[in-house]
């Protein structure tokens, strides 16, 4: 089983993801350069956080043109696991691999802090070790994480159970106060209809070891490993 971590110019969480896969999970992992035209040989592809192309123009706007994105689109179409974290999520929406868009935080400021996430869907390759409603403590770090979709799209996403994580308070309640960026329905992470592409703003890569304040993020990577071992999951 081999993970790939994509490097775009301006990515800055690629080493963090690499470290979790290699040193925390003990799985094999390699970097994928954004100019590569194939992701052959990889079982899962991670788009890490950062500021691809400085997030100039719009977050993810210029990154979506990288050659590797076509390969990743095919990979996803064939059912390959694709996981976009933070900037990776933004790139996936820009590239049309996930619905919606990520607007500027309502507070207009970058926010870096731990949040509670309520697990909404376990029937995905990214959440198969989680239980419905399970609370995860995972930090965010973004200025544009305000999830938006037009009413019909939103209805469809909710209807299909594509919402995987919502921002919650420490008791698991989905409240406006628990919403750090103004996301519709407190949405923190979604999957595509096929459920093999996940995008989320919070950073499991920064919360996979107790010494960093939480190891909850590890559960998401472990779910991916499960899914690759037992594809039926």
């Amino acid at each position, binding site marked *: 089983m081999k993970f790939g971590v994509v490097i775009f110019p301006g990515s800055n969480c690629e080493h963090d993801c690499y470290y979790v896969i290699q040193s925390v999970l003990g799985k094999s992992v390699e970097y994928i350069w954004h100019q590569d035209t194939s992701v052959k040989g990889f079982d899962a592809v991670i788009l890490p956080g950062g500021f691809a192309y400085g997030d100039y123009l719009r977050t993810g706007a210029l990154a979506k043109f990288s050659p590797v994105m076509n390969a990743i689109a095919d990979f996803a179409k064939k059912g390959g696991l694709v996981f976009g974290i933070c900037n990776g999520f933004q790139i996936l929406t*820009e590239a049309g691999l996930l619905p919606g*868009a990520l607007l500027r935080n*309502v*507070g207009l400021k970058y926010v870096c802090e731990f949040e509670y996430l309520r697990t909404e869907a376990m029937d995905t390759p990214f959440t198969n070790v989680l239980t419905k409603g399970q609370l995860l403590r995972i930090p965010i770090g973004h200025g544009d994480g305000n999830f*938006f979709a037009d009413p019909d799209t939103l209805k469809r996403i909710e209807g299909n159970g594509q919402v995987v994580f919502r921002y919650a308070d420490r008791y698991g309640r989905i409240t406006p106060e628990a919403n750090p960026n103004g996301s519709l329905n407190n949405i923190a992470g979604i999957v595509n209809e096929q459920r093999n592409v996940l995008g989320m703003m919070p950073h499991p890569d920064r919360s996979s070891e107790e010494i960093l304040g939480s190891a909850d993020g590890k559960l998401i990577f472990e779910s991916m490993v499960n899914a690759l071992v037992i594809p039926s999951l």
Partner: protein
Amino acid sequence: MRATVIVTLKPTVLDPQGMTIHRSLASLGLTDITDVRQGKIFHVQLKEGNREQVERLAKEVLTNPVIEEYRIIWE
């Protein structure tokens, strides 16, 4: 040859920046201003002709159709 591309959020999309500016105005006594919406403007230089390159730039690069719309002004 010069073109200007104006990119604005669709009317249905919330504009936190514009709202924040608008909220700050009362304290400055700018009470006659009833609404502010923010967008982006791009001044583009191009070699003669080839207008469709600007069209493509505006459509495929400068605008995210999910939330934005664009207008091109030729000079």
